[in-house]
């Protein structure tokens, strides 16, 4: 589904990513972990088009993403839930969801998606007319994820969804994400909280200073002490 080949990104003289390669197959849950500055968010930005790579390829279902403007990529079936939620604070919950359904596929499935969203996150149904900026951090994260779902994507990319959330709320979010995966949605998750990310995934990559230093399925990574040393620098 999504293939990243030898991607390199540099800005202002700093090389943020060096020849990264990864694959997300249809319906797979892939986690990307690594300490700060490892390049995780840069990777996301390259996929969604916010930064331009200096080398490499990104393809989604055969489409060359680098040849396409950033705003068009959402229309291929990739939904991006950015770091820090980034909800439209001045618009209501419903309006945020409407914006999420902007691509054709989203408009087509609007009713069905709305049902699913409210079943997954009932609190959003309650707060549907509230301005998104007044929601709590956890609720905003739910909204951001729902916004992503509203476009009927085949791949949902999440950038550090647990950041700034209380542990219990973060747990709930993770649970919902795994639920979405069980229902068939492909997930690409970037997280700093390694435990949950590695446990729930089908396949994981560990990034450090712009390179993939470890890769493997869930069990392999959990058994490896290498992750701890990447984070704590032993």
């Amino acid at each position: 589904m999504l293939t990243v080949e030898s991607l390199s990104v540099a800005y202002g003289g700093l090389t943020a990513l060096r020849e990264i390669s990864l694959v997300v197959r249809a319906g797979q849950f892939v986690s990307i972990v690594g300490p700060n500055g490892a390049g995780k968010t840069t990777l996301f930005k390259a996929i969604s088009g916010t930064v331009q790579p200096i080398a490499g390829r990104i393809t989604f279902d055969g489409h060359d993403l680098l040849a396409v403007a950033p705003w068009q990529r959402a229309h291929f079936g990739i939904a991006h839930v950015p770091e820090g939620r980034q909800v439209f604070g001045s618009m209501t919950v419903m309006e945020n969801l409407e914006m999420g359904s902007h691509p054709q596929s989203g408009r087509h499935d609007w009713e069905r998606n709305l049902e699913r969203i409210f079943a997954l996150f009932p609190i959003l149904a309650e707060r549907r007319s509230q301005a998104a900026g007044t929601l709590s951090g956890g609720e905003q994260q739910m909204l951001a994820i729902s916004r992503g779902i509203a476009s009927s994507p085949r791949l949902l990319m999440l950038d550090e969804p647990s950041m700034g959330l209380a542990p219990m709320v973060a747990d709930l979010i993770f649970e919902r994400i795994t639920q979405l995966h069980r229902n068939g949605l492909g997930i690409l998750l970037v997280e700093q909280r390694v435990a949950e990310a590695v446990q729930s995934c089908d396949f994981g990559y560990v990034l450090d200073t712009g390179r993939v230093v470890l890769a493997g399925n869930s069990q392999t990574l959990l058994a490896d002490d290498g992750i701890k040393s990447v984070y704590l620098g032993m």
Partner: protein
Amino acid sequence: MQARRSLIAPLLVIASLAVAWIGLGLIVSNSYYQLMLTLVPIWAVMGLSWNILSGYTGLVSFGHAAFFGLGAYTVTIALVHFDITPWLGIPLGMIVGAIAGIVIGYPTFRLRGQYFALSMLAYPMALLYVFEWLGYQEVPLPMKRAAPAFYMQFSDYRVYIALAVALLVTSLLISLVVERSRFGMALIAIKQNEPAAEAAGIDTFAWKMRAIVVSGAIAAAAGGLYAVVLLVVTPGSVFGMLTSAQALIVALFGGVGILWGPLIGAAILIPLSETLQAHLGDVVPGIQGVVYGVAIILVVLLAPEGIFWRVRDYVQRQRPPSALPVMPMPPRAAVVEPALTPPRQRKPILSVNGLSKSFGGLRAVADASFDVSDGEILGIIGPNGAGKTTLFNLLNGYLQPDNGKVVFAGHELTGLKPNRVCRLGIGRTFQVVRAFPRLSVLNNVVVGAYATTSNDADAFAAASKALAQVALVARSDTIAGGLSNKELRLMELARALAGEPRLLLMDEPLAGLASQEIEDLLALIRSLAAQGTTFVIIEHTMRAMMRLAERFVVLDHGRILTVGQPSDIINDGKVIEAYLGQKWAAIRAHG
């Protein structure tokens, strides 16, 4: 090594320009061209005045007409009502302009970018209406046939040209002094990165006020001379938008932030528009405005900083790059190894007690308390969003804490502005290095020495010493725009060292460096620490920090999790949890 560029070249240029201009004035007899020869210098002076405030600092003023008009009206009213000659009236106008600068600057400098520009627009327009209301619709200057020279009225037009040139030369000299002294450097630093300038000890508000006072005085002088030359003053002609626009365009077109810019701009634009106005003005009224408008649009799109820079950059690119060798770091053997006193026995130099800061409902830093010992290297670590940079901003003075105290070497820091904190001996480097790309490395570094030295010679000496400390002396005269990433970081470090700080706060100094470069920087920090500087470093590159820092403070969600030595931190369950997640240990145990 040159401490500063020689003044001889610009002085020669100014002198020859003056001589050439007056020579032209002696030759030309057509009264229209004589007027032009008078107007070009006057508008060049306006451009120079605009440059001093807006060109160097980057605070765009759309309201210089306020000072121009005040100068014009001071001269006019002094002459009409009090019979005071313009020879005194113009200096009086300069005083009025300077005062206006203070009155306008004090409230308006609190505003940023767009709001500043809009507000500056409002002042001359308000004055326009006020003066119209006061009844000064059109005030001709009375002819003084009894003693014309005493009242600055001359039948020979060439005297006016000479006066205009004299004003221009004075303004050029003032600009030269500003540009080449710490005044100009401080302004450029403010434009480049105001927070960094504050942290380097520059009292940004004070320098901005000085800039507007000088700028206002010069603009008022131009206005005063304008009144004398034109012999009639209307609110629209001196307070109008075209006047403000002309000041701006002349500088912008010719070159922003450099002495010669307004000269070039005035020399090209004024004759162009005045000629078009004279020849086509009847058929196409308003041609002047169109010319200026088109000139602005072209400049913004094609040469955003003015012709001077565009040409100079082009010329510099044509030259082959200088073949300077990459400066190697001193061999390891020469590096002084860390002091023998174990950390526990050193006295605390910085005490943080109960420091808290919230933004809205979010607690960014909660009840942080720790000490930093004199001469140690302390690492501040923690996952993303833990509050590390906020903590630094609290220590530095960018943010005021809600609660808590910070005491440094006996002084209480809480509530002080960043430049005062710097003067007390705390330096800071930033994650993103904002250099002055067109200046030499030495000039980039000298800004850091202004807080601790009173004259320029000492400042340059301190800067050179700092460059020696980071082994960047060979690059002193290199233009900063051509430095590598590592060299930029060293330069940033040198700038902080130039202020001879006792404690240095470094925010992610290793970001983006290759492994050998990291090693070199670590060695440098160790040797500086051995010489007595205390370091507090935020970093994410854990592997490197493990070998550098003697102690760590671990933050998570704004709280201090633990403080301890590297070996203790790595095995601390709470720390592992903060980074890897609560369930890590549990999952592994079941694993």
